[in-house]
């Protein structure tokens, strides 16, 4: 009998604010321990939280993007538990009344589309970090991260494979970055994915789940879930039982391991935080935010296919990130003839290829949209051929200047003078009498040979169209 896999994801997206969710301390990453923790973050006596209102708009944006219910009156609650990196002894979170209610997100795996339910998204503060080993025999506490604003996005248990789970996570990752509400940096923990994995026989109630935490790449998330599915199936088939627990992924050995041996049922004693007022969101606010929403990736892809006539693949590459799409649209805008196909080809091959090769993001690209468009304009106005453009592009990538500067300094300007091209044609034909004979005898494929020879003789700079035209004229004489 087969097994059915049930996966739900909890994604913690760190919101791109300057300061913490309830204090004025900075949330910049990587500062010296405890230099970005004010008395509120440290939970000092008498300190009170004040909501950073920037988090509200960002949360509503996600809610709108997920076609979700927006919590018109959302409430902050206290989740009570003791832990050294939790300064107040409670985490301020949202329980019964989250800011984002039920929504959905469409994913695609192997060409099959599936709509995944989003249970809710709620605001909460991050905890600090325990640091082991800095002081011998003691545990250090760094509260820089305490109070960092998080939006916890909880999916329905609608995902039925590791691939679907990763597709959903990637889609959410793309979405929060498009919205500009999260920088998506998984290494720094700005985007964290926890996976709840269980298996069951079809038609049976949900199986016991294990939670996979702290995995900071999509590749490892997929591997960890795959391992976990195998582990649970093997365990159940050999008569064992799955224990509800948190498991960590060991990427070196490609296995998951139990994090806690003693599994306690925590009673968090949630209750509304009396220090914070409920957040009331009006229809007007929602309309304002809706009006300021950027175009979302799915809509953008559809537009690129419909309006620009691009293939699904090209549209996918060009909308792979908001930065990529903005770069592309800027290049199109700056090229003289708005030759979308040409722009798209260069973006999906030359530009994307160079980024991938260098392991760079669009933001880190050594050339900007102006430079890219500058080069494309020279192709369009026949100053250079597509082939020469590759040389120009590489030189621009290496920081040798703009397309015009490189064409000038390297003498790459295309030969369009028909007298000069005629001379080249004559020379090649004169040097290859037997091939000319062959051509005239009916071997028309020799034409390509002549073109190759002429281009070679011109150092690649002869305009290929003109070469063809003049060559054909001469041969038919």
């Amino acid at each position, binding site marked *: 009998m087969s097994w059915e896999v049930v996966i739900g994801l909890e994604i913690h997206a760190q919101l791109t604010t300057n300061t913490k969710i309830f204090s004025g301390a900075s949330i910049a990453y990587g500062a010296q321990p405890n230099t970005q923790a004010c*008395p509120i973050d*440290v*939970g*000092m*006596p*008498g*300190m*009170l*939280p*004040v*909501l950073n209102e920037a988090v509200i708009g960002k949360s509503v944006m996600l809610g709108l993007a997920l076609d979700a219910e927006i919590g018109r009156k959302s409430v902050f609650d*206290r989740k*009570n538990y*003791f832990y*050294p990196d939790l*300064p*107040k*002894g*409670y985490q301020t979170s949202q329980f019964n009344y989250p800011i984002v209610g039920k929504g959905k997100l469409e994913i695609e795996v192997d060409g099959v589309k599936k709509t995944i339910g989003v249970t809710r998204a709620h605001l909460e503060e991050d905890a600090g970090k325990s640091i082991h080993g800095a002081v011998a025999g003691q545990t250090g*506490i760094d509260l820089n991260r305490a109070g960092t604003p998080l939006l916890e996005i909880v999916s329905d248990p609608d995902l039925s494979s590791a691939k679907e789970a990763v597709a959903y996570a990637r889609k959410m990752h793309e979405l929060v970055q498009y919205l500009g509400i999260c920088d998506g940096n998984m290494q720094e923990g700005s985007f964290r994915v926890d996976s709840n994995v269980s298996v069951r026989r079809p038609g049976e109630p949900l199986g016991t789940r294990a939670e996979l935490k702290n995995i900071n790449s999509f590749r490892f998330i997929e591997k960890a879930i795959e391992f976990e599915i195998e582990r649970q199936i093997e365990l159940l088939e050999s008569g064992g039982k799955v224990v509800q627990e948190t498991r960590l992924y060991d990427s070196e050995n490609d296995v998951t391991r139990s994090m806690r041996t003693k599994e306690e049922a925590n*009673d968090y*004693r*949630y*209750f509304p935080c*009396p*220090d*914070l*007022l409920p957040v009331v969101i009006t229809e007007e606010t929602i309309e304002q935010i809706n009006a300021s929403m950027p175009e979302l990736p799915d809509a953008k892809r559809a537009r690129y296919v419909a309006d620009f006539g691009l293939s699904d693949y090209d549209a996918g590459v060009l909308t792979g990130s908001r930065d990529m799409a903005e770069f592309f649209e800027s290049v199109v805008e700056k090229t003289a003839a708005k030759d979308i196909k040409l722009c798209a080809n260069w973006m999906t091959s030359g530009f994307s290829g160079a980024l991938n090769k260098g392991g760079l993001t669009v933001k880190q690209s050594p050339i900007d949209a102006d430079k890219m468009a500058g080069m494309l304009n020279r192709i369009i106005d026949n100053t250079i051929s597509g082939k020469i453009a590759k040389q120009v592009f590489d030189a621009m990538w290496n920081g040798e200047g703009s397309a015009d500067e490189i064409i000038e300094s390297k003498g790459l300007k295309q030969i369009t003078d028909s007298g000069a091209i005629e001379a080249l044609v004559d020379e090649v034909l004169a040097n290859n009498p037997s091939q000319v004979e062959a051509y005239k005898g009916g071997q028309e494929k020799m034409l390509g040979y002549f073109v190759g020879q002429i281009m070679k003789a011109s150092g690649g700079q002869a305009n290929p169209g003109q070469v063809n035209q003049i060559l054909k004229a001469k041969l038919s004489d």
Partner: protein
Amino acid sequence: MHNLTIKQMSEKLHAGEITSVQLTQHYLDRISKYDTELNAYVSVTPELAMMMAEQADKKLASGEADLLTGIPVAHKDIFCTDGVKTSCSSKMLDNFIAPYDAHVVSQLKKVGMPILGKTNMDEFAMGSSSESSYYGPTKNPWNHQAVPGGSSGGAAAVIAAGLAPMATGTDTGGSIRQPASFCGITGIKPTYGSVSRFGIVAYASSFDQAGPMTRSAQDSAWLLNAMAGFDERDSTSLQREAVDYAAELGQSLKGLKVGVPAEYFGEGLDADVEAVVRDAIAEVEKLGAEVVEVHLPNKDLAVPSYYVLAPAEASSNLSRFDGVRFGYRCENPKDLEDLYKRSRSEGLGAEVKRRIMVGAYALSAGYYDAYYLKAQKLRRMVRDDFTKAFESCDVIMGPVAPTPAFNIGEKTDDPTSMYLADLYTIPVNLAGLPGISVPAGFVNDRPVGLHIVGPYFSETKLLNVAHQYQQVTDWHTRMPAQYQ
């Protein structure tokens, strides 16, 4: 000098007849002389006081002084005070020196009120007698066998004994009004949200409210003017236009409708206290007020509701006292759990632990609906009672506490009888209303207060009613013989 009214003190300071340095030194001398016995101060801060007094004198000389500039003040030890131990009368915070000022403290510093010290209280403001203090009980200046009330017992005692001209307090379930009643002083708890809670060590956040503790209603109005106002650091602080709480002092009480709730004069009320309170109401009637009967049918639900909700909030508010970052930490903890358990067991007192346990229980899975949610419903019922009552009256009058000050040790073994000491004050906190305790007489040698409660934002009215009463009575001017 300690027999002067605040108005007289202010006039003399402004006229240059006395200096703040002289006045402050006078109080410091009295504290040295009397407080060893009284135990009303947890900390005395003579150097800070004198430095501030000198600055106040400069301000007075410059002509830019406020009414209260140069007049010393004592802060309840629940207000964080920069550079000064802020203990909340707990072993847990015996080593805690606050690195910031509570909003109230910084407001009064701006005015130029020298800080004499920090007053004793029930540990973390949990109590009605000031006996749960880690530093031992404060005595009632009127009778050293008696408690001063609580939790702001130290503040009430220093005003009654003339060891400070003005003091700050906080009131969560009656902690300003009940000790004011027990010590024969005036104390007002303003509408919830009037005074910022920033820097006040939290007990029960949805109830905690700071207010002045002084001799007269006029003094309270002046001090409240300096304490109140919007503070963006407290999300529950009310954003209103500045109020002059002394604005209505001097208005006639003719036509004032005084509601007297029958439920406040029933079983449990000491007959002598009742007589004092009824006399006081009669006195107000003579000033032109009209007495009407009102009802607060759910009065008896208030104490049970409060003793679920306040401990629930406290159980969470006090979680930060875990021995990790500040405050008491046990010696040589074996591991993390041992650190938590022993630091809290050793650092917190019995009443605090009792409330944390009650609160954690009320919030726990399976009990939340039956206790916490139910108590919230009762809270609304109690509030609705007041709303209805105020449809037919301007203010409500009754007793502050069912008895005069009881003896030290009398109720320490019986928490529920201690809880009933706040029977009449707690409903006012549940509703978030303003209430004032005004000295109204004595039962034997122990003072008794008149409780006046008004609708939201009626402080100016309450203060005037109290002020008018104090124009025709002298209870508020009396001092215990040995402190005169």
